[in-house]
């Protein structure tokens, strides 16, 4: 192919026009006549038996159409509980949520009843009148405590607080430890809170009683899965359920799940024969939307006098929360991500997944990788200090070399496929980052600052992300009778610029402007199959599907035009919505003429007796992940009197393979950095000892705001992915992974003279001050 016209260009996004002018269409912007609105009554206890629910006063309240509990909803459904979303895992029974609490509540915020009223105002009025009697039960607030023999059960309906135990292991760990010059035992605690897209969850369900069909507008990352689960739970078939993700105001993982509220709202719409809407408010997001939360990592490491890692072993305990709706992919991802870009010759990590009385955990942007990477980077800093080498030098010695690619780690992804890093020059990526932040010049900057009583620190880290998860994604590409080019996909647009990327990939083949291509994503009524938005996969999987389908449509358009114009295919080109003789724009046919001809005329042959239609559908298959990566280098300043951290500069060197649109990839990188920067320094989802959430507003749970963010320099290096025809890799999560490791390394570096050691994130100023006090005491 000649040089790219559209792929790799920083084109304006096709999404922006509507979103900038108030013409976006999010779920709550869709209003159907006769819509009723819902409010949920939620548990005020983290663990309790429900002894009674009195709905009589609520039912008598103005504008109320229904007040329903589990016993009212259950007859509408084919199962007691929601389905387990990642089904092939061997997991114990009774671990998924009920649509509404069934006799026992296991986290504060679990929905117990729903009020359906003329408006949300009236529904909330009535929700306050529902009287729930509880018999409190002991709550488990901490996942380490949950594993102890005397721990109370987080859920009395389950046999154990341990959902699953498994190992990630390869190599001869015993021998590595026996022969190593150095050994160390290091313990870490990691914590990531809520996802917090600015649009919370939202669902509008309309059961059409004339056609026995359900349409659901859902702020989701997985339209087709939601349809599949609703079909199962409501006893319908695919033809009767259409799930549409309209404009989605961000996802970050939390919308990659069907929740009890989606089931209840659709079931109620069917019961009442009316459209029913529920819009999550922020408090509900804090209480009842998944989080990523806590992991305890107890690691033993073995390493040589040259600073090279020889082996790692230990245990990781993961806080699963009160239910396991999506399987254990979060701790699985975290544990397989431990080695990352570094050589770990032998590994034996035991993983314990423990239930607690908090809302369930599933992956948030980064999917466990940031926590694992943090531990690895902390280990490398420990090695550097022990053997007396520079932190960069230790990383350089342990990074996988480009000549070792493709590199098989010894671990397997959850598909069972071996984890193979397909491409990349990790040492070069790290060198590029350190050059950009002037690592060489840092000691002098640090010295000068110290003379003024200021404490500068520098840190670096590198993470990898398995992207483009399979098994497939769908695309249909079509030129219709109007000449309009359409791309239809099961991938779901949640704000990343997916439609722009897919339009550019299609435009590359069909020679029309991306802005003129209609992209329909996340509508099960438009395409039969699809998987959606997760694991930085959509440009890889959906993009490849669009590419293959576009190539096929291009070839067919050329053949049809060749017949109609009686010109050889090789003499034709696609240009501006026409197929024309090369260099003779007047001699050609428009896409409208081609689309019309290929739509057929009753009784007549199609051009060249080609199969009808200018359309091709393709499900792109992929079982191997393609590994993208990022290096973060950060320079910051810590005020030892207050514990305040001021970030001065962040450099992100990112490899997402071949870049479709550098603007949107840079946007993903910067957004990723700021997300986990929040996780590192500001965001803490607190619970007290009774597992009561204590940070349920944005005044208590701090999302990063503009003033605390420094300018982030993004450098895109492209190492084409090997598992797809475009050479692309995912971009949505790479740069979020190394941020906690890099920032904490820099803080420790700034406070080196105080002997501060950090084994956790997030780090509030108060916690840094506490660590400083401990460090000072240790030095004294």
């Amino acid at each position, binding site marked *: 192919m000649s040089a790219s016209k559209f792929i790799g260009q920083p084109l*304006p*996004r096709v*999404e*922006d*026009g*509507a*979103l*900038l*002018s*108030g*013409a*976006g*269409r*999010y779920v*709550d*912007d869709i*209003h159907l006549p006769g819509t009723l609105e819902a409010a949920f009554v939620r548990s005020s206890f983290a663990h309790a038996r429900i002894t009674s629910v009195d709905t009589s006063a609520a039912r008598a309240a*103005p504008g109320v159409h229904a007040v329903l509990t589990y016993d009212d909803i259950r007859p509408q459904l084919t199962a007691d509980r929601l389905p387990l979303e990642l089904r092939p895992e061997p997991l114990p029974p009774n671990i998924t949520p009920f649509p509404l609490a069934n006799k026992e509540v296991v986290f504060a915020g679990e929905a117990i009843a729903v009020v359906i009223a003329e408006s949300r*105002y*009236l529904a909330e*009025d009535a929700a306050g009148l529902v009287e729930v009697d509880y018999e409190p039960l002991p709550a488990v607030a901490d996942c380490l405590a949950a594993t102890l023999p005397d721990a109370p059960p987080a859920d009395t309906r389950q046999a154990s607080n341990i959902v699953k135990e498994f190992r990630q292991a390869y190599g001869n760990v015993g021998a590595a430890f026996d022969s190593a010059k150095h050994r160390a035992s290091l313990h870490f605690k990691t914590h990531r809170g809520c996802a*917090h*897209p*600015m*649009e*919370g969850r939202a669902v509008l369900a309309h059961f059409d009683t004339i056609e026995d069909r359900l349409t659901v507008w859902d702020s989701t990352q997985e339209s087709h899965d939601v349809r599949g689960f609703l079909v199962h739970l409501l006893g319908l078939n695919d033809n009767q359920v259409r799930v549409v993700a309209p*404009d*989605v*105001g*961000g996802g*970050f993982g939390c919308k990659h799940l069907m929740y009890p509220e989606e089931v209840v709202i659709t079931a109620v719409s069917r019961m009442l024969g009316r459209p029913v809407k529920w*819009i999550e*408010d*922020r*408090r509900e997001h804090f209480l009842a939307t998944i989080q990523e939360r806590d992991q305890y990592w107890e690691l033993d490491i073995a390493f040589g006098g040259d600073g090279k890692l020889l082996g790692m072993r230990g245990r990781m305990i993961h806080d699963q929360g009160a239910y396991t709706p999506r399987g254990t992919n979060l701790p699985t991802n975290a544990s397989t991500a431990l080695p990352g870009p570094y050589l770990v010759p032998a590994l034996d990590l035991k993983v314990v997944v423990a239930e607690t009385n908090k809302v369930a955990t599933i992956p948030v942007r980064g999917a466990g990788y940031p926590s694992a990477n943090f531990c690895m980077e902390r280990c490398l800093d420990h090695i550097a200090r022990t053997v007396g080498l520079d932190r960069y030098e230790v990383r350089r010695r342990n990074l996988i070399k480009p000549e070792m690619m493709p590199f098989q780690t010894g671990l397997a992804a959850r598909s069972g496929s071996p984890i193979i890093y397909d491409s990349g020059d990790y040492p070069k990526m790290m060198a590029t980052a350190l050059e950009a932040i002037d690592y060489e010049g840092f000691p002098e900057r640090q010295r000068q600052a110290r003379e003024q009583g200021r404490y500068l620190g520098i840190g670096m880290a590198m993470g990898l992300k398995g992207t483009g998860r399979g098994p497939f994604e769908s695309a249909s590409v079509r030129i219709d009778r109007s000449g309009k080019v359409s791309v239809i996909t099961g991938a779901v647009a*949640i*704000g*990343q*610029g997916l439609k722009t990327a897919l339009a550019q990939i299609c435009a590359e083949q069909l020679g029309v402007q991306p802005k003129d291509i209609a992209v329909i994503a996340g509508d099960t009524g438009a395409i039969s199959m699809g998987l959606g938005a997760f694991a930085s996969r959509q440009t890889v999987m959906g993009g490849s599907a669009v590419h293959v389908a576009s190539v096929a449509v291009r070839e067919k358009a050329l053949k049809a035009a060749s017949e109609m114009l009686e010109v050889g295919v090789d003499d034709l080109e696609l240009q501006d919505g026409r197929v024309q003789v090369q260099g003779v724009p007047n001699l050609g046919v428009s896409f409208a003429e081609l689309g019309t001809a290929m739509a057929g005329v009753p009784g007549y042959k199609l051009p060249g007796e080609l199969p009808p239609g200018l359309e091709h559908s393709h499900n792109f298959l992929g079982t191997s992940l393609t590994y993208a990566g990022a290096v973060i280098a950060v320079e910051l300043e810590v005020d030892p009197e207050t514990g305040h951290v001021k970030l001065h500069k962040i450099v992100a060197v990112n490899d997402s393979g071949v870049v479709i649109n550098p*603007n*949107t990839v*840079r*946007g993903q990188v*910067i*957004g990723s*950095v*700021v*997300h986990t920067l929040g996780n590192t320094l500001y965001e803490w989802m607190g619970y007290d000892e009774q597992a009561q959430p204590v940070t349920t*507003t*944005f*005044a208590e749970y701090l*999302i990063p*705001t*503009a*003033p605390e*963010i420094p*300018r*982030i320099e993004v450098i895109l290096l492209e190492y084409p992915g090997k598992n797809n025809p475009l050479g692309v890799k995912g971009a949505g999560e790479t740069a979020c992974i190394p941020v906690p490791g890099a920032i904490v390394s820099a803080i420790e570096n700034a406070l080196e003279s105080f002997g501060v050691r950090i084994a956790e994130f997030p780090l509030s100023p108060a916690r840094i001050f506490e660590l400083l006090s401990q460090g000072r005491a240790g030095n004294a």
Partner: protein
Amino acid sequence: MSDTHRITVRVNGEQREVEVEGRLTLADMLRHRLQLTGTHLGCEHGVCGACTVLVDGRSARSCLMLAVQTDGKSVETVESLGGRGNPSHPLQQAFIEHHALQCGYCTPGMLMTLVEFLRDDPNPTEASVREAISGNLCRCTGYQGIVDATLAVAKAFANEAGR
């Protein structure tokens, strides 16, 4: 709950008469009564800034303000910037050029905050822009594109004025 009030409010230059309950928020009036759904609700407790509109030219959290409080006042929303689906305001254009939005949910509040800011401070610095949007949360962009877009618009205005 028949606590209703008839109010007269100028919305995006147009005089509107609306019958509202005393407790109806300005955001809900705009979104559900006047079908101006460009104004979004992100937290409903006055922190995230997604619902920011201008009331008599000053930014206000429409989730915390009651509709009745706008009686006799003038309200500007993102729809006032013009070009439904085809934005033409310099800030909207700069947002496109500098990739200042992703999911678009916080964007209307950002734009209205910045419209007020640039009226007050036509010669901003990077620090002052960051301070200006410190009351608007964005989970997607990391703010850098928004800052760059704002500085670019201010520079273009300054060049225009200097000519």
